């Protein structure tokens, strides 16, 4: 099996993680109307809470549930700030606020958990599920992939087919109008933030063994989450899913090509440029 193919396949495991994080980011954008930079810093905070509790002797299931709750609570707090003060703000203002919050949460997390302390993440699914193209595929990769696909289908059905989904869409697109139509705006929005925080924390707990397990590195997974969501045009869940996998696969491919390996962090940018150019291919400009 050629090396190029096997490293590409290997990248898909990370791709599934990017996809899940991207989907969660997209959900917050579509339903709470915020391009949210704090997502992975919050998720890493919850995940490290789990590690700290587990290290202190708390049984793993209890530690995981507590970590997820902490992630959900912190994300809800971020959402609370956005809902209370910036609900009617412009997109650019909201995004800038979350960037500031991201910096604050990262600084706080680094203090609490140590900037380069190794998180002892449990890796219960490290066993080999099957062998594909010279790569051992772990159960972690299989589960992450199934979750990513499941989340995509779930999001599409939830928003398109349920009454609650419809209300949430109304809420994000016209918050004031929605509130006037007796939709409990604040509560629903905070619910979205809570779910986003819980999903992100759980994703990071699951995929952390693939990545450098320090607080900082895990927080910076936000770039990949945004890249995946951008590929989906901040609109489409299926395209975000595909975007995550594409980013992972390209990252894997690039690492076996020595000439481009150093520029791996630029891959998301290149992918996004290509997607934007392709999606605008029918656009016409008139010079007057």
């Amino acid at each position: 099996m050629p090396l190029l193919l096997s490293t590409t396949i290997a990248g898909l495991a990370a791709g599934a993680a990017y996809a899940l994080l991207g989907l969660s980011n997209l959900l917050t954008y579509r339903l709470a109307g915020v391009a949210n930079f704090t997502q992975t810093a919050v998720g890493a905070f919850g995940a490290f809470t789990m590690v700290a509790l587990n290290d202190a002797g708390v049984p793993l299931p209890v530690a995981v549930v507590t970590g997820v709750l902490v992630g959900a609570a912190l994300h809800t707090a971020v959402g609370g700030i956005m809902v209370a003060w910036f609900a009617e703000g412009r997109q650019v203002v909201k995004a800038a606020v979350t960037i500031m919050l991201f910096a604050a949460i990262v600084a706080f997390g680094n203090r609490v958990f140590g900037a380069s302390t190794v998180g002892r993440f449990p890796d219960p699914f490290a066993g080999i599920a099957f062998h594909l193209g010279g790569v051992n595929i772990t159960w972690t990769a299989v589960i992450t992939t199934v979750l990513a696909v499941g989340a995509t289908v779930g999001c599409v059905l939830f928003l398109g087919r349920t009454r609650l989904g419809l209300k949430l869409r109304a809420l994000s697109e016209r918050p004031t109008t929605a509130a006037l139509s007796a939709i409990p705006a604040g509560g629903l929005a905070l619910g979205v933030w809570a779910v986003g925080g819980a999903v992100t924390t759980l994703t990071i707990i699951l995929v952390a063994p693939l990545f450098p397990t320090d607080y900082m590195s895990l927080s910076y997974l936000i770039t990949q989450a945004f890249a995946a969501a951008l590929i989906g045009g901040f609109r489409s869940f299926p395209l975000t899913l595909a975007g995550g996998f594409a980013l992972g696969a390209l990252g894997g491919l690039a690492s076996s090509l020595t000439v481009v390996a150093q520029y791996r962090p630029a891959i998301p940018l290149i992918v996004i440029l290509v997607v934007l150019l392709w999606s605008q291919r029918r656009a016409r400009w008139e010079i007057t």
Partner: protein
Amino acid sequence: MRHALKTISVVVTVAGTMLATTTGCGTSDDPSSPITIGALASLTGNDGFPAEDATKTAQAVFDRVNKQGGINGRKIQFVVKDDATNPGRASQAVRELLAQGAVAFAGDATIVGCAVNSAYYKQQSLAVVSAVGVDPVCFNSPNIASVNVGPFTSITANLYFASETLGHSKLCNFVQLTPGGQAAYTAAVTRWEKATGKKITINDDSIQPSSDLTPYLLRAKSAGCEAVVFNAAQPQVVPMVKIAKAQGMQNVDFLFLGVSYTEGVARALADLKDMKVYAGSEFEPYTDDTEANRDWRSLAESIGVAGSSFSQGGYVAAQTMVEVLKTIKGDITRESVTAALKTLKPISNPMTGTPFTWGDATSHAPNQAVKMVKLEDGAWKTVTPDFVVVPGADG
């Protein structure tokens, strides 16, 4: 009003600094006044860098000397300044230390200080015996000698151990670049190739701090690497070994640098018993209760500093400085310390594999030897009873 206040505060600061400088110069020649030794340390700004272990242990060495009567009756005053891992602060802190009359630095543990200050040290003829050197300048400056091996020579040492002791012919080196380090990392591999006449199979410095390591390991596997050397710290070393296990690389030796020789890595990898993990200790392995470590350990324990290579570096650097000061007849000044270093006979320390030297060299890298430790049952065990000395030392 605000402008006036600003002017006044500038004038006061400048006057204060001048006063301090004059006082400093005045006291250094006085036989009853203390000898001021400075140290620059990244005490804050990077939580993963325990610089305090180095400076606290160095302080304990100087305190003991003072208790025993000092250097020819003169006490050592040890002043540590935090550079906050910030180049601007690192530059400022050195000027403050000189203003306080520092005749030399010892026990430094700084991430940014060597590169920022090397030229100023030369201009001021200040000698620095650093405890923990990080960037290439710490090992390539006429005024700095670091007592640790450092990341670059450590790579050469790991490669040398893998090829000459473990007998591997296909070696692969993965590097996560640090600022200003690319040329030195490449030189480390070239040095091994020259010393052994062998060729590296893969030398890849494209690993980024947030890289997923699976594709890199697959590359190493497909190239048939028998040993993988990786320079990163704990957060990346642990996933590397876990992913390598998932990809069935149990027959490959993984060799890391001193930065990964920690209890944290040992604990995190304790369950992966079938993986072969080594690290290069830059001093007598701190986890060993050997004769060589005895004095350092009892001193470190007496001040409540846990065993670490940083603490060992602080100890060796301070001990070395004390030896240097003892050789000086007459005034102890920046110039006389530098002169003493130039004519210094090699100083051996049982905690290092090669003696401390200075002489007329334009660069100093006295420590050219590591001891290899291997992970066994969740603990580090020394596997080379003697130091592995890297051939072709130019330091």
